């Protein structure tokens, strides 16, 4: 069949160029620009971008900003640990213990709340956690002491864990589902106690899945804006919130905001690279 050679030659471009150009223009190039702007101190709209100093990065080493960054990392670690502790038994039960034909449905049901608006989920947590909210109404009905969590880090932690738990369960499930059950049976036959078998047989097999889940939750936690913003109080500034306020807040400083944003990108990329290097190839399924 005769095919004109120029259409043939054009075909790869027609397929790859639109998306490629789009990604380049609206993702790669802007990210490079952020890195450049972060090197211009005190930049204002209309200024020439002439990367000249590390001043904006030095501002990050102000103790206050460092403290904010440390808080972000701490919150993300706490969220990740909580998600792992809460998510593992759930994924384990759905993947290994629940009736087989219900597994898919159970998993779907568990992650369904993920598909509701993240702002509205935080809003729901405000209704629950505020001093006269649902939680305290129930507690006082049961004659238990009430809890004061709203506008503080615990509320932020609850909101973030709630938002990210489904991700953790999804990834752990994918990993646990592939578990070789015969190994478990063999361990039991050889007289291993359940805990022993769990630690020495199950955990090593799902370690790549755990690593992938931890990474996914961690990078999402570090970039979370909505939960700290809506559930936090006067002492729950995080890096993502600070970047936002450096652009749309009361004292804008695009240069410093860009520097912080560049650091966020580098930090996240570094975590991924480390995982790919030292973790299992399974993480690629991310």
């Amino acid at each position: 069949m005769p095919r004109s050679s120029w259409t043939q030659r054009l075909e790869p471009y027609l397929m790859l160029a639109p998306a490629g150009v789009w990604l380049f223009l609206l993702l790669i190039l802007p990210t490079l620009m952020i890195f450049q702007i972060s090197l211009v101190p005190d930049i204002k709209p209309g200024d020439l971008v002439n990367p000249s100093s590390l001043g904006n990065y030095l501002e990050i080493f102000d103790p206050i900003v460092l403290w904010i960054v440390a808080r972000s990392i701490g919150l993300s670690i706490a969220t990740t640990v909580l998600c792992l502790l809460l998510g593992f038994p759930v994924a384990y039960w759905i993947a290994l213990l629940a009736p087989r034909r219900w597994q898919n449905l159970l998993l779907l049901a568990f992650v369904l709340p993920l598909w509701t608006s993240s702002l509205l989920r935080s809003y729901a947590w405000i209704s629950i956690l505020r001093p006269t909210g649902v939680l305290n109404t129930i507690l006082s009905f049961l004659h238990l002491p009430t809890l004061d969590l709203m506008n503080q880090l615990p509320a932020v932690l609850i909101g973030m864990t709630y938002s990210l738990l489904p991700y953790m369960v999804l990834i752990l499930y994918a990993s646990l589902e592939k578990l070789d059950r015969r190994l478990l049976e063999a361990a039991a036959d050889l007289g291993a106690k359940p805990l022993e078998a769990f630690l020495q047989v199950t955990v090593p097999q799902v370690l790549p899945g755990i690593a992938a889940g931890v990474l996914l939750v961690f990078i999402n936690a570090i970039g979370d804006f909505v939960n700290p913003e809506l559930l936090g109080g006067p002492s729950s500034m995080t890096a993502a919130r600070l970047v936002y306020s450096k652009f749309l807040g009361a004292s804008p400083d695009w240069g410093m905001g860009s520097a912080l944003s560049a650091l966020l990108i580098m930090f996240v990329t570094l975590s991924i690279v480390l995982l790919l290097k030292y973790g299992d190839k399974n993480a690629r399924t991310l």
Partner: protein
Amino acid sequence: MDSQQFGSTDKGLPPGLTRRSRRRFLQQAGQVALGLGLTQGLSSCGWRLGNVRSGPVKASSDELFLYTWAQYVDDDLLRDFQAKSGLKTIRELFDSNEKMIAALQAGKGDSFSLLYPSEYFIPKLVKAKLLAELDHDRINGLNNLMPQFRRSIADADNHYGIPFAWGTTGLIYNQEKVSDEIQDWDYLWKNKEKLLRKMSLLDDYREVIGFCLKTLGYSINETQPDRIKEAYEKLSRLKPFISSFTTDGWRTKLAAGDLWIAMAYSSDAIGLLKENPKLRYIIPKPGGTRWSDWMVIPKSAPNPNAAYAWMNYLLNPEVAANVSQRLAVTTPNAAAIPLLPSELQTNAVSYPPPDIMARCESMTALTPEAEKLYAKYWTQLTS
């Protein structure tokens, strides 16, 4: 990893295509990069961070975009204005002057035909060359305004703006929860343990640092660095006991009992006091701020005609009286006051007695250095 799969793909194509496409792809990518000045930028010849602008709103002349505070516009007002002028109004909300100008500079500016900055903020907008001068020939009823709003320091002769509302800043509290008669701002510091996370302050650094300066016996427009620092240090002692810094979010929380005491603008307080007799609004000693919010037309306004129509509509004494009553704002329109119900005319929150007004101070624009200092301490307070 998928080489086999792709090997089979190559079979269907004339040899050499992939290599050629590779080169072409690179060339193309290079051209795009060049065209965008990326390479220039990377070799630090520099590109310019342009002004972000907002796209021209549909060129229709029967639409008016407002940028205003949450409380100043409601659906009834928009409907009534549309019925009278035929103009459809769309509103966007902000909750502090600083955030408004940040949003304008981040590209939201060009669609708005009318902004509602505070009086002290007008000079800053003028300096940023954002405002258009008003054409007084197109405005009816300027003389209805109270005299102090005709010769404001920030905008003498209403060169750039027309006041819409004014009021004071004070404390609103729930008398059921806070039984003491609050007299002064220092009450917050003295009872901070009892009020742990039951109090909120405004999300506005001029107001918050300003009232704290006042408690120290300084002016709310203080520019001396050591005094500003003193106020910051005093505030940072209160901060761990505060629920949040919020301009609008305290209202329902106060009604629900989540908050007992909130720093508030009088205009927000009036409406709540009507609904809830347990609440009380005071201007604590040694005094608060006296503020006013104005309507101005940005230079880039897509529809200044509509903006003038809106100003004239609100300058009408009857409309002003209606708005003042329904939205619970205090009007600067002297001609509107006689049209108000008498209990509103004598309302001490809307129109405080002269001895209390004497305690209040008007905000003025700060020097850029002082402003930076305020902003710096504010970042520290809110993080």
